[in-house]
């Protein structure tokens, strides 16, 4: 038996009138895979998810969930999906446990012992009314509801935006467990560390368009190397050396990124009497900067994510 992809899109696109929300997207998520769907706010992540779930009509292309056309037959496609939306909107008058019960019925499947375990692990007090919950607690309710369905595909839209670091750790563990059980996870996020920690592969979306898909290792190969150098005296001007960018001088210390061969840079460093040299693989954060440049908006976005 050939395995059917959890998600497959072919030229999936969406426009609202003249406004393009998503350019033709080809993407595949295998069973048991965690795909990080990374992009700044407004890049089209939520649009992608709503097309995938058949909540909005795609302007073009196809979206399949386990081989079922999600645009034509969303009810059938949703049978194996659990979804956590980006905004944690719940019924203010219901308690946490009433909400979990309701969402379980919406989902159609609940593993109650696992749900109980998740409630304890996330330290949620389910007896309180939703209106008394913080943003983080509402987020927990949604996560617990989705995870306890044990759906074959979890679609999570910015799932940790309100969680504190401790709870984020619990979230990461549970996603790890889901993957270990063979569930696929589509994790939309602009939080780089989260995607870095959880994903098998990363898809990067920029300005409504997919710019990059690959494993983190593949991405690193494509991108820059980060260099930190300390000099005995005044540092030389490195910005003219081929392949070097993002030069940041601070006293006798220089940070920069280099794409392609490091030889010209090394020659220059040696000639200028480098005292200490540190080179490392860039973090996902830096990958992101390589894609989007150092625009003020990008910097703001990163600051927000950090």
């Amino acid at each position: 038996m050939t395995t059917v992809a959890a998600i497959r899109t072919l030229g999936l696109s969406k426009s609202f009138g003249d406004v393009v929300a998503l350019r033709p997207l080809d993407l595949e998520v295998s069973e048991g895979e965690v795909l990080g769907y990374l992009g700044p706010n407004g890049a089209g992540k939520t649009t992608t998810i709503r097309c995938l779930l058949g909540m909005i009509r795609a302007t073009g292309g196809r979206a399949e969930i386990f081989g079922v056309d999600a645009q034509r037959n969303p009810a059938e496609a949703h049978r194996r999906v659990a979804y956590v939306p980006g905004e944690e909107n719940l019924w203010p008058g219901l308690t946490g446990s009433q909400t979990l019960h309701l969402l379980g019925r919406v989902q159609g499947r609940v593993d109650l012992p696992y749900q109980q375990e998740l409630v304890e692990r996330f330290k949620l007090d389910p007896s309180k009314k939703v209106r008394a919950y913080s943003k983080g607690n509402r987020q927990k309710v949604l996560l617990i509801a989705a995870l306890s369905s044990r759906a074959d595909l979890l679609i999570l839209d910015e799932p940790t935006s309100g969680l504190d670091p401790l709870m984020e750790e619990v979230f990461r563990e549970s996603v790890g467990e889901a993957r270990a059980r063979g569930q696929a996870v589509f994790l939309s996020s602009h939080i780089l560390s989260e995607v870095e920690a959880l994903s098998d592969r990363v898809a990067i979306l920029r300005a409504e368009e997919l710019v990059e898909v690959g494993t983190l290792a593949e991405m690193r190969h494509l991108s820059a190397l980060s260099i930190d150098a300390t000099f005995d005296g005044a540092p030389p001007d490195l910005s003219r050396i081929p392949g070097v960018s993002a030069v940041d001088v601070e006293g006798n210390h220089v940070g920069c990124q280099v794409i392609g061969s490091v030889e010209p840079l090394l020659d220059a460093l040696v000639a200028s009497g480098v005292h200490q040299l540190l080179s490392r693989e860039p973090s996902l954060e830096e990958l992101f900067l390589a894609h989007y440049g150092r625009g003020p908006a990008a910097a703001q976005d990163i600051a927000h994510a950090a």
Partner: protein
Amino acid sequence: MRREHAIGERRAPTVIAWLTAKQAARSAAVWGVLFGLLVLQDAGSYHSNYPTLAARETLERNFGHNAALNAITGQARRLDTVGGWVSWRMFGLMIIIGAIWGLLTASRLLRKQEDAGRWELLLAGQTARRQATLQAIAGLAAGWVVLWALTAAFTVAVSSRSAVGFSTSGSLLYATVATASAAMFLAIGALASQLAGTRRQANGLAAAILAACFLIRMVADAVNSLGWMRWISPLGWAENVHPFTGSQPLALLPIALLTIGAAALAVTLAGRRDLGTAVLARREAVNQTLVCSAVPQL
């Protein structure tokens, strides 16, 4: 797989219908009891307030043909009978309250859910936009049944008193007329929830339709020669039934047609539009979505 079995899978869950029905029934029960008590009180006191035939004829003479009064309260007919009296006294009030309840309830359980982002959660279940709206409308219908059943129960209860002497079928018809506008405006509210982009706008649209219906009905009841205009106002249709005073159940037909037609159109439109958008003022809705999702533009 045993595991799947233990988890317990349900096919085609009707959770949206149940959720909507529960919320609609709660307010329907309050109004149903109130409608019932009004009928009970008014029918029960008729004979003690107007004990003689002469008193009743005076009543008919004073209020039965007063055009200005009819414009507000609706057409009076046979005020010298208890059936004519409770119809005239109650319909004007119940039909307006019912219509307002209907339009507010529909927009609260459809457009407001969508505005608040909860509709998205419900849509993620084993359903789609069209089916989900159909379920919600079935839930609204259940709410109407509660309103009708309580009104009917009180009316049947009062009919058993010898002095009142309503027939059971007349009592049921009375409850149907009293709640007919609620049914029509639940459907119109559901339709407005598809047409308008926010709950406020949906309420405004449905209320404007109600106001137009009311104005036409006013003119029809105030000016004798314009009585035919009752047939072009849904509120006039309800008046034309006359459950106790020469009943015309056929007048229920346009009411049923309007209710079913508006509900069906609402379901169709819901299937055709994107989550969070409106059929009217599409551009505006889109701009709102974009503003919300596009904050740090790169």
